[in-house]
């Protein structure tokens, strides 16, 4: 269906107060059990859309609203900085996902969420839903460092914490940096997207500099009191592979950034860099804020872990990094949550019993150079008393190695295919 026609249909339905399944022509399905609208086409949103279609055998209509025309993977994007991947190695289209599963796709921006009347306002129209899934990823908080908020400032000092042109920009800055230069990065207080990601980034940049600009330094300014994830492993990598290059400094809350001079001031230090990367603190993505779903510290969204239904809005589900949980904010976790959410939505809409003991896995591989990777992996099961996903088993690599480098690439290939085909 043409997007304009589709939005017109949605608008007329909303105006008439008629639900989607009673009118013909809204969907290729003749016996629709209702319409789910998914906001966001990242690991969480694309996965929930696919699995609702698969498990309802096409009985539930699914519409995805995503602002970008392409999917760019955050996992492996630090390898673009290290120089062993190009951004296009991590960039994919949404066509296969739409065609293979009969998903309606709207490339647009959400400007309003009306959970009382079950409709969304987009830049170019309105759309109604029976159930809404919000998978908005993260939004950055610039209250502490407002000078970094503008697009111009981010040209100078990219966060590169959402893979795309900022990743490419940061790589170009590294390529232009003279031998003997300083790359400084700042890590926000947790929780943030991808707990081991900043340390992987430090290793990737150091790997590039060690090979091409060996007099250079990597200064890691961490707001946290210590390395947040894979601590022992990263400490050993920094000492064994990058001694004299990586200078790791904990307890370094940033207080000021001089954008023009690429100078960062923390509670303890002033660091002037040739290339500066500041990763801002984070909260649930904008659409979750718009809908008022970020009820935990005004940052993250509380959900029921059996269904991922929001604690504050009925028939609205939240999945992925935006969720408030004592779980790592990873792509694999987003995918796992999306599948439990899809299962529950299908069960609810088809009148089946909701699974009371969902079980899922999480894996985070980190590359420490071009070839070697290390993992943290775990299984989690729902605990009815604690009303939370509780770790059943898990562990870490003994040391980074080339075998796991290949498994990390295999993980990426398969989660990409699982998300996008």
């Amino acid at each position, binding site marked *: 269906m043409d997007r304009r026609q589709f939005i017109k249909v949605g608008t007329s339905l909303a105006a008439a107060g008629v639900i989607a399944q009673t009118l013909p022509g809204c969907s290729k399905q003749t016996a629709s059990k209702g319409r789910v609208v998914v906001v966001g086409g990242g690991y969480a949103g694309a996965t929930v859309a696919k*699995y609702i279609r698969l*498990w309802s055998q096409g009985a539930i209509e699914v519409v995805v609203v995503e*602002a*970008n*025309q*392409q999917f*760019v993977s955050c996992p492996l994007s630090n390898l673009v900085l290290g120089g062993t991947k190009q*951004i*296009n190695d991590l*960039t*994919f*289209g949404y*066509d*296969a996902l739409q065609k293979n599963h009969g998903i309606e796709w709207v490339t647009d921006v959400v400007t309003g969420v009306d959970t009382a009347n079950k409709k969304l306002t987009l830049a170019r129209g309105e759309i109604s839903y029976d159930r809404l899934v919000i998978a908005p990823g993260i939004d*950055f908080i610039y209250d502490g460092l407002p000078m970094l908020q503008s*697009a111009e400032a981010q040209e100078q000092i990219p966060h590169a914490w*959402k*893979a*795309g*042109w*900022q990743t*490419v920009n940061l790589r170009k800055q590294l390529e232009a940096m003279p031998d003997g230069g300083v790359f400084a990065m700042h890590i926000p207080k947790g929780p943030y997207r991808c707990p081991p990601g900043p340390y992987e980034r430090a290793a990737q940049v150091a790997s590039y500099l060690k090979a091409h600009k060996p007099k250079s330094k990597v200064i890691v300014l961490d707001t946290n009191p210590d390395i947040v994830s894979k601590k022992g492993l990263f400490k050993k990598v920094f000492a064994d592979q990058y001694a004299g290059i990586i200078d790791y400094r904990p307890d370094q809350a940033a207080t000021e950034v001089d954008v023009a001079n690429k100078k960062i001031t923390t509670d303890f230090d002033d660091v002037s860099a040739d290339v500066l990367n500041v990763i801002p603190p984070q909260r649930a993505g904008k659409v979750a804020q718009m809908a008022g779903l970020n009820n935990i510290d005004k940052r993250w969204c509380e959900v029921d872990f059996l269904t991922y239904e929001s604690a504050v809005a009925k028939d609205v589900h939240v999945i992925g990094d935006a969720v408030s949980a004592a779980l790592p904010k990873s792509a*694999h976790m987003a*995918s*796992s949550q999306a*599948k439990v959410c899809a*299962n529950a939505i299908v069960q609810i809409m088809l009148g089946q*019993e909701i*699974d009371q003991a*969902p*079980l*899922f*896995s999480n*894996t985070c591989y980190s590359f420490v150079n071009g070839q070697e990777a290390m*993992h943290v*992996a*775990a*299984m989690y*099961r729902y605990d009815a008393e604690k009303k939370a996903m509780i770790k*059943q*088993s*898990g*562990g870490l*690599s003994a040391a980074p190695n*080339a*075998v*796991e480098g*290949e*498994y990390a*690439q*295999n*993980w990426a*290939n*398969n*989660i*990409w*295919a*699982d998300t*996008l*085909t």
Partner: protein
Amino acid sequence: MRIRKNTLILGLVLSSCFTLNVFAEPSATHIRAVAATCAACHGTQGHNVKTTFANAKAPKTLAGIDASFFVEQLYQFRSGERKSTVMERYAKGLNDAEIEALSVYFSQQSAGTPVLPKAALSKNHQHQ
């Protein structure tokens, strides 16, 4: 075949390493979602992308796998008898009934290989 699997289960129960309330038949909807968590490395419904391996042993394609082979491998991963990187972590989080049901689920999937929809990053891609 059936006898061998039961013997394995009995052995595991006797070794008392694992919880005993594992024999309840898991629902089909529970198992499809547990199988989906394997997809991150093994592909949707066991249809994996072909990756090049020079150092590692390639992960098994799960679609159409022999059910008893699957059960035996998962028990070996769980006990540590078969060395692994991540599989031991996952196998230890599954109960016996889930391993049995997953073996049936994956054995019943037909073959297929997904193709990644590669693209070039467009000029207007935005992530503020």
